């Protein structure tokens, strides 16, 4: 990212000189890199799509003419048309309204799952990589064991044993998903531990906290951040899959996976019940993917430069 100057002198820095111990900083362009680079188009499309979805979710009551939970048996199973854009389900509920409202819960699930895993994993990864020794060993063995299970199997089992629901889903994913971040961050920390600027920072007798927070963290944070942006796709699909299986969000709260499940018995004739909520998942996932891929490409270019 930035060049670390080898060696050091005791002289204080004067404002005009280049910084002696150039501490790499988290540049805004790493996160919002659509200003330049070859990936700008895909990232731009990704952010636009995501922006539209977020706006739709936030302003759902203004967009929808129907309530997402109001029953209307007279209008049950109506095909998509001018009255109901996406048709209605077996209870006469408006699929469009339900799909738009469901964006709220699905986005919240994806973001909260990823941010929790990101925070726990990064913290434990830094600790493991920095401390080394027994602590590192124990943490990494835990990571090995967690990775030995298919992720979905572990999550479904934990959710099932704790009882279905959003809290169980959140707990189950938090128990498991931090390991990906911890492993990533740990290997970064192990590599950077002996970088010149780290040695210099330690030699300057800074407190451990200061070295960790101001010198180490800004350097290792890019990788997990990039990973998190593509992890959003998996978190979105995971939340929807678990809800599809009837273990996540419970009715009548509209959620995409659960809506697909609700419509599954009608898939032969009334395809719209399952089609539209699933399509919403795909569009959201594409938005996340475009952003994630773009950021990953940027990070690769950044480290190659």
């Amino acid at each position, binding site marked *: 990212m930035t060049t670390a100057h080898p060696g050091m002198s005791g002289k204080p820095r004067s404002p005009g000189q280049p910084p002696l111990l150039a501490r790499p900083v988290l540049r805004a362009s790493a996160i919002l890199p659509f200003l330049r680079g070859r990936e700008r188009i895909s990232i731009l499309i990704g952010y636009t799509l995501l922006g539209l979805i977020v706006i739709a979710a936030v302003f759902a009551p203004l967009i929808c003419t129907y309530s997402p939970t109001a029953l209307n048996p007279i209008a049950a199973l109506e095909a998509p048309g001018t009255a109901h854009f996406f048709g209605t389900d077996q209870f006469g509920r408006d699929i469009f309204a339900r799909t738009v409202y469901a964006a709220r819960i699905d986005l919240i699930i994806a973001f909260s799952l990823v941010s929790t895993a990101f925070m726990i994993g990064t913290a434990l990864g830094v600790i493991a990589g920095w401390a080394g020794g027994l602590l590192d060993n124990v943490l990494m063995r835990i990571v090995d064991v967690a990775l030995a299970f298919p992720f979905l199997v*572990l999550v*479904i089992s934990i959710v099932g044993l704790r009882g279905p629901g959003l809290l169980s889903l959140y707990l189950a994913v938090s128990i498991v998903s931090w390991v990906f971040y911890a492993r990533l961050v740990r290997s970064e920390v192990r590599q950077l531990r002996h970088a010149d600027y780290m040695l210099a920072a330690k030699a300057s007798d800074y407190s451990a906290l200061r070295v960790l927070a101001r010198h180490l963290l800004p350097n290792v944070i890019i990788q997990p951040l990039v990973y998190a942006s593509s992890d959003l796709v998996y978190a979105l699909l995971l939340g*929807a899959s678990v809800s599809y299986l009837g273990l996540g969000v419970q009715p009548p709260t509209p959620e995409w996976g659960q809506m697909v499940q609700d419509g599954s018995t009608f898939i032969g004739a009334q395809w719209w019940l399952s089609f539209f909520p*699933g399509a919403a998942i795909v569009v959201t996932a594409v938005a996340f993917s475009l952003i994630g891929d773009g950021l990953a490409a940027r990070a690769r270019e950044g480290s190659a430069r």
Partner: protein
Amino acid sequence: MRHLILRRLLQALPVLIGITLVTFSMVHLVPGDPARALAGQRATPQILASIRHQLGIDKPLVTQYWHFISGLPRGQLGYSFLLHQTTDALVLARLPTTLFLVIYGVLIAIVLGVPLAMISAVRKESLLDHGIKGTLVVGLGLPSFWIGLLLVGFLALRLGWFPVGGAGSGFIGHLWHLFLPALTLALSFLAVLVRNLRASLIEVMDTDFVSLAVLKGIPRLRVYTRHVMRNALIPAVTIIGLNLSYLLGASVVVESVFSVDGIGNTLVNAVLSRDYQLVQGLALVFGVLVLLVTLTVDITHAGLSPRGEMA
């Protein structure tokens, strides 16, 4: 080589112990009393006590754990109180279906993915390549339960080309019944496969021996199939090996969508009916399965590469 295998096996041992510990402690995640959850609210204290005794949860934890692992070498994985069968019998009967489905899915993914990756790599940065890449971005976001359901609705219910669910009987019956489930599984994995394969193909194409083959006047197609593809196959196999854990996880959802009676669908049903011992046993089987696959991939990979001993 024998050294390497031995070392890998020794490294796997703590993971194996970890897997048993995790699956063992799973039952203790059940809020409240597992016996009451099984017997219902109106059960008498005597019934509860007898269920606790049957589950073995009236003994100290260490004894319970010892009881749990001491049965494993003999294949005792517990008992399903709802299906009235031992978990090992269920696994024995249903695991083959799951393995068939996963292997079938991988084969379909290869059949679809290799040509796509090849075209994408040969016509690098062309409109076609960008088109394929764009499609893959969509493919990455396809929920398998949704695509599976659409396939059922369109190809099975509307057109009647395929059976709606189940696994069929016999090899041909499996091939026929599991085609849509396997296709669904393949589609959920295709994007990852093609992306990685494309990258390794491009890497091979940039090597000197490929340039030499082209300069010698060997027809392009022959260079691609004989020189490039062969060398890109090792990374392809590795990608598949590394993703088998993911594929097994995805098969759980796919089996549930198509009501295929593999161990994945059994897990979902066990979870939904709160059949704790069965959940525990199946989670263990999945964990051991992934461990075995990882070990196999590790050892074959090390055996194939000349620098394997160092890895």
